[in-house]
């Protein structure tokens, strides 16, 4: 070990390690860097399929100006996406953690419970959309029938009202992805060292204090990773919304991915869509970095 804490590796071993990881690095660069570069090039050109006479022409930052303009609707989509992520991710985390805590003990049917609870996450997102489409269909949906009998949503089905449509999409996302959080938290809980927990219990700490002061801090790295995954995934939600509402009613459920899809594949404004996706990618990276810095900050150690 060197004085600065790095490992002292033989140069020939170092070379061998590079040879081993080079194919992977090359592949990653190919599948991530190449599309990025092509998207950047497209974002600087007139790529609208309907603008025949100008197609392919270099237009500088015109696409970015269009996308950031009021007419494009991107800001609204971004705000709705932030709101969506801010609602679903904490809810999924809390529910996932609660279920993981309940499963974090030995009992006979635990494995069966874990398997059953994981089912929503294992279903393809488009199938999730179709299932809930049937359940919440205006005249024929089972859940619609139940809610109507309770006096809810009579005459104004769930996906016909902006607020209820947005909330319904959020609830469906929580139903689908809470098991994912549960799995992460359960894996984390099962991997925790038992000595600190036992020591706290011997010292007379209540279950709540053990959880809050011992388990949760130890779980922090796992929580950070799980939340990062979900924030990234939730901000990209597409299939469920596409199947259920198409972004409606109005623009109530038109999040970033749906907006980008419409720009690219309904309006065939490929240059605008490239600019939009680059902007979204850049700001997502920025947000993810800030988020990571905040949640992975080590708590200051108190003097002994």
């Amino acid at each position: 070990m060197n004085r600065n804490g790095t490992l002292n590796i033989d140069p020939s071993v170092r070379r061998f390690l590079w040879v081993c990881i080079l194919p992977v690095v090359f592949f990653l660069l190919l599948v991530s860097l190449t599309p990025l570069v092509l998207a950047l090039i497209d974002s600087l050109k007139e790529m609208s399929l309907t603008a025949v006479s100008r197609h392919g022409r270099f237009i500088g930052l015109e696409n970015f100006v269009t996308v950031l303009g009021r007419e494009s609707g991107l800001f609204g989509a971004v705000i709705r996406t932030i709101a969506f992520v801010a609602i679903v991710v904490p809810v999924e985390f809390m529910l996932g953690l609660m279920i993981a805590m309940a499963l974090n003990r030995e009992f006979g049917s635990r494995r069966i419970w874990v398997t059953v609870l994981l089912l929503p996450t294992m279903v393809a997102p488009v199938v999730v959309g179709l299932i809930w489409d049937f359940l919440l269909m205006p005249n024929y949906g089972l859940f619609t029938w139940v809610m109507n009998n309770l006096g809810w949503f009579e005459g104004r089905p769930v996906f016909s009202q902006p607020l209820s449509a947005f909330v319904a999409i959020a609830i469906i996302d929580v139903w689908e992805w809470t098991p994912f959080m549960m799995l992460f938290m359960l894996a984390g809980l099962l991997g925790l060292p038992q000595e600190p927990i036992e020591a706290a219990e011997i010292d007379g700490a209540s279950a709540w204090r053990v959880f809050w002061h011992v388990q949760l801090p130890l779980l922090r790295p796992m929580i950070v990773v799980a939340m990062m995954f979900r924030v990234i995934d939730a901000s990209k939600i597409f299939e469920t919304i596409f199947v259920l509402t198409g972004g409606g009613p109005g623009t109530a459920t038109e999040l970033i991915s749906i907006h980008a899809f419409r720009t690219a594949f309904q309006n065939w404004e490929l240059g605008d869509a490239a600019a939009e996706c680059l902007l979204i990618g850049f700001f997502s990276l920025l947000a993810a970095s800030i988020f990571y810095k905040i949640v992975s900050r080590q708590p200051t150690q108190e003097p002994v």
Partner: protein
Amino acid sequence: MLSHIERPDWRRLFGIAIMLAGALTLSVPAGAWSLEDAAKPYAGTTIKCVGDGYAPFLAYQKLAAEKFTTVTGITVEWEVGDVGGGLRQKMIADAINKTSVYDCVELPSLDVGLWIAQGFAKPMYELLADEKLHDPGFDPWTAYVPETLAFSSTEDGKIYGLPYHFIPRFMVVRTDLATCPSEQAAFKAKLGYDLPLKPATWEQFTDVAKFFTRKAGDKLCDETLTEDFYGTAVSMKRHWATQYDFELFLNGLGGTMFDGDGPLDTAEGFKSGGKVAFDSPVAVKAMEYWLSLLPFVPPGYLEYTWDNTYADMCQGKLYTYPTWGDTTPFLETAGEGGCPKVAGKMTYYPVPGTNLTGAEGQAWLIPISSKHQEATFLFLQWLASFDVQKECQKIGCTSPRKDVWFEHDFDGIGAVEITRWLIQNKKLIARGHPVAMPEISTFLIDAVHTAGLGEKSAAAALTEAAEKSRAAIAQQ
């Protein structure tokens, strides 16, 4: 002895014989065109076609396997899916990148102008001009319903595709309810005139829609309803169905999408495009009329597409609604896959008001990147032939050929009768397909949807959509 008899002029006779032989040679074709001969150079080829996974496409699949391949040796592979979903994007991706995945595509009419302008489509007229390939008995200009040919497959008087199907829109009504004596009496007592089986005016349409909207517990033809019943249904989801629904009311109330739209004697002179016209006073009136029907439709209209309106009719929840030519076989079927609750109870009638309706239909196009253009053309030409179309009509097709609709085999079928009436009385509209049509469609769908949501007035919504559309057309 012969000296006194006139000798025949052998040179003259020889000359006449030569002329006769020449005339005979010219009148007999060098070799009459046949599919087998035309296909010989392409035997063993496999072509790939992509399209909507429902009745017409499935019928074409069946016929191609049974008849075309055995005659020509050309195999047809099929990719079946939802054209309005992911297939449309796959077709365009293949066209842009020239990956030659597809040899024939069932193209939504919204994209036709774009495909032609971008050069994605192999011009069909070039293949039709090839004597080795073109069956001289097939003349697209006269074979097809002119409006559907013009609207789905031509640009500036040239043919770029061949129509895939023909699905005009008209209305359907529950005959049993319209002829129910108690309902007739109640209608007359309330409104002062006889219940019309086929509402001829929009006022009558409103009257019947309002009259037949009932709550669970009310009576309908002397039976107590166990659930709500509605006069009609509309589609207002952010979906293509909404645009087509709007067009139906627009055309029926005297408006058009573009100022060049209308019935045609022939598709040859049709010029697609023209100026945007769906923000005219007539169009605003049409949209306001459409919105006035909302109290008489199922409450989920903002989530409704053509599938939902059809399902409601199939389940016996509606009195009358605008339908598509391709739903009628299912509405009339009591067996599996059909509508037992309403089968045999349907009457079809033209759109009230002007009776004008769009000559809707998709088209077959051959991508320019296809490596089997000639073989594909032979296939599409074979599909377009009278015999194939007639046979296909019996198993789910809705033929774009005029002559098939007038075949006596189909006499007495309600949907056929109404379609014949539309063709004979020139009540079909060819709509333009400007290059910017995909964007125009999105603007219009959003406009109608927000008006249905109550966020904008009809005038404001249509004006905004029209202005955006004009800007999109201008940037071409």
